[in-house]
């Protein structure tokens, strides 16, 4: 097989060790804060732990989704960026550790675990919402994600050295198998860990809601890493604004998608006006939460929408970095809005306890990135599509 035609000159540059140190410091600070938080208020920390878990899961499984999507769609422009998504999907490996502390406080977090005092409705749901099945599901989700992660990523890394085109074909097949698993696991994972915090409440669109945030978070962290790397010349030569444009356009599209789904969920519940559904939104309309609810529209939709609306803004590296960082913040904001009102019960809660978790998340993500960036190429240099990817123009 002639592999010379699609070879691309790529010389690896090492990531400065400063970044690794920053990641390490952030992780340690975050971890200290988390331990202090658990000592002072374990239940509140448990809720924060769920936010952390859902945030890191978003980045992990969302990045894996982007990798699989590229293989399935045969998209060309994203090939030079795929390796970063592959790195970030390694977040999946630490998810069980992140879930563990929350698991110890299951009785305080999830009302449905109190079998002795369940009302009629929850008794009817007990066939799905019981600790044994919940644990089995969570372990299964983690296992499925990690297995697909290992298969996909191993093939891709192997290709750097062997230049085998067959590996791409194999990964396309793996991706096709992964997709249905992805849909079901993400849907039920979000139902289990967020929706069941209020076991009486239900929204049939909730899985899609979490999915939209997941893809946004994965795209945002990809953009946040890729744009500075390319500007400083860590990736291959020849990547131009057309490549950025595609990243910006996808973020813009999924911002709209999120707004569409979030509004659909709200509209149906508002229209039907059934007490068993509306209480969830009413809870987020009391006390300080009302500002968060209104702020969500601004933070999650309007600001990224306006920021990425025009064509030049999708090609502007500085704008892309700002917007992707903002979208990551907005995802955390969204998860906070989804999860914390269940703890607050009408009263707004925010304090030092909440701070440790995002700091820890940032540190861990930096460590994961630098760990993999130190060991593997920053672009899939053996991928047969890479040459065409560099020539991609709008």
């Amino acid at each position: 097989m002639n592999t010379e035609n699609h070879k691309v000159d790529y010389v690896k540059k090492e990531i400065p060790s400063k970044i690794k140190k920053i990641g390490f410091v952030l992780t340690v600070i975050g971890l200290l804060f988390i331990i202090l938080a658990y000592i002072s208020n374990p239940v509140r920390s448990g809720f924060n732990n769920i936010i952390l878990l859902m945030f890191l899961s978003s980045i992990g499984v969302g990045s894996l989704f982007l990798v699989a999507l590229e293989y399935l769609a045969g998209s060309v422009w994203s090939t030079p960026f795929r390796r970063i998504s592959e790195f970030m999907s390694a977040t999946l490996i630490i998810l069980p550790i992140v879930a563990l502390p929350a698991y110890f406080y299951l009785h305080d977090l999830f009302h449905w675990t109190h079998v002795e005092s369940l009302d009629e409705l929850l008794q009817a749901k007990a066939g799905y919402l019981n600790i044994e099945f919940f644990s089995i599901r969570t372990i299964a989700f983690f296992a499925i994600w990690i297995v697909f992660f290992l298969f996909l990523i191993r093939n891709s890394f192997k290709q750097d050295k062997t230049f085998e085109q067959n590996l791409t074909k194999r990964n396309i097949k793996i991706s096709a198998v992964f997709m249905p698993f992805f849909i079901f696991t993400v849907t039920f994972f979000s139902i289990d860990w967020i929706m069941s915090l209020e076991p009486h409440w239900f929204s049939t669109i909730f899985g899609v809601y979490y999915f939209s945030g997941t893809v946004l978070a994965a795209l945002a962290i990809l953009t946040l890493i890729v744009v500075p790397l390319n500007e400083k010349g860590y990736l291959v030569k020849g990547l131009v604004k057309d490549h950025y444009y595609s990243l910006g356009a996808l973020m813009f599209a999924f911002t709209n998608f999120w707004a569409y789904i979030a509004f659909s969920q709200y509209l149906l519940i508002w229209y039907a006006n059934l007490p068993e559904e509306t209480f969830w939104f009413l809870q987020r309309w009391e006390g300080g939460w009302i500002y968060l609810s209104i702020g969500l529209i601004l933070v999650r939709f309007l600001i990224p929408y306006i920021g990425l609306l025009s064509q030049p803004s999708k090609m502007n590296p500085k704008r892309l970095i700002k917007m992707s960082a903002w979208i990551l913040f907005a995802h955390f904001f969204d998860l906070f809005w989804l999860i914390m009102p269940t703890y607050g019960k009408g009263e707004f809660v925010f304090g030092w306890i909440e701070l440790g978790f995002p700091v820890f998340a940032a540190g861990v993500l930096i460590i994961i990135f630098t760990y993999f960036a130190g060991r593997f190429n920053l672009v899939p240099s053996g991928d047969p599509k890479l040459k065409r990817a560099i020539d991609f123009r709008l």
Partner: protein
Amino acid sequence: MLDDKILFGYTGLFNSPNEIIRAAEKVSDAGYKKYDVNTPYPLHGMNSAMKLPPSKLGYAALIFGLSGMLAALAIMYWVAVIDYPLIIGGKPFFAFPAFVPVIFEVTVLSASIATVLTMISIFFKFPNISHPLHDTDYMKAVSSDKYGICIQADDAIFNETEVKNLLEKLNAHEIKPIYYDDNEIKHKNTVFEPRFLILLLFVALITAGATYFAMNKLLYAVPFNWMETQEKLNVQESSVFFSDGFGMRNPVDGTVSRGNLPYQFNGNPEAASTYLKNPLFPDDKNISIGKAKYDTYCSPCHGYFGEGNSRMRGQFPNPPTLHSEKVRNWKDGSIYHVIVDGQNIMSSYASQLTYQERWAVVLYIRVLQRSLNAMESDLE
């Protein structure tokens, strides 16, 4: 060289997308501004090769999208809040979430329509539908399998020999000059001429008149009159047949319709008490009919158990209890009489209850009375 013709520009053809992109880059590098590339399908990378600025069309979409949004909001606000406020589903008049889908659709619709119209009218200069490149071999070639470039003569740095040399250097085939067609130059747009506009007006009037005539006159000509007039008397119609001119007639005196025997004791309770006997047997079926009818028609004032505790919240005076000594000693006929004829402020219930049902209600009232004043023999 034909001197009497006016040059539009020079065209050249290429065989592959890569060649045309390279050619576009070279032509734009040479400083030409007025040139265009024609390809059978859109080529990736052509925008940057031709150094095209971002399209201005987006502003039209933005402006018209926003106006559509505001228009939709204003119309719905005017209709639902100001002109015809209706409570729908217990929502406020200004039910913003319900408006959002409509606002969204109208925004998208007006933005897309306006974008197409702007493109046609401003960028394509409608109603001008002619172009010098039409009907040339060049256009035929680039519509099938060739990639062409055309440098226009009105470019600031256009020079025939230089342009020819440049195209030759780029290895273009069939480098040809394109001239304005004589007819095209002399051609004037007749669209806005008064004669044409008057013609349009005539066509519009004739079309509208013919449509009106066809829809309102022809369609109702006999026999296709949609059975609007029929050889029979409709209600409320006059008639020349009868001497009083009325089409509708009263029934003949003394007519009795089936199942509706006239009541003969109006205003005469004593006679009713004496002569009327309950024809129904007090079995489960009749009593349950009586209960159903009593609960529907009698209970609002008399109460479910006949003690006169009205559910009407004092809008009518409460009727006296049905358990009084007087009513208990009444004969069935008296109760029947009250149902048919009314009593005091109670009006007649003859139109609500049939003959059978009235007697069934009488049976049920007897049951109620017995329930509060049971006899000792009932215990046996």
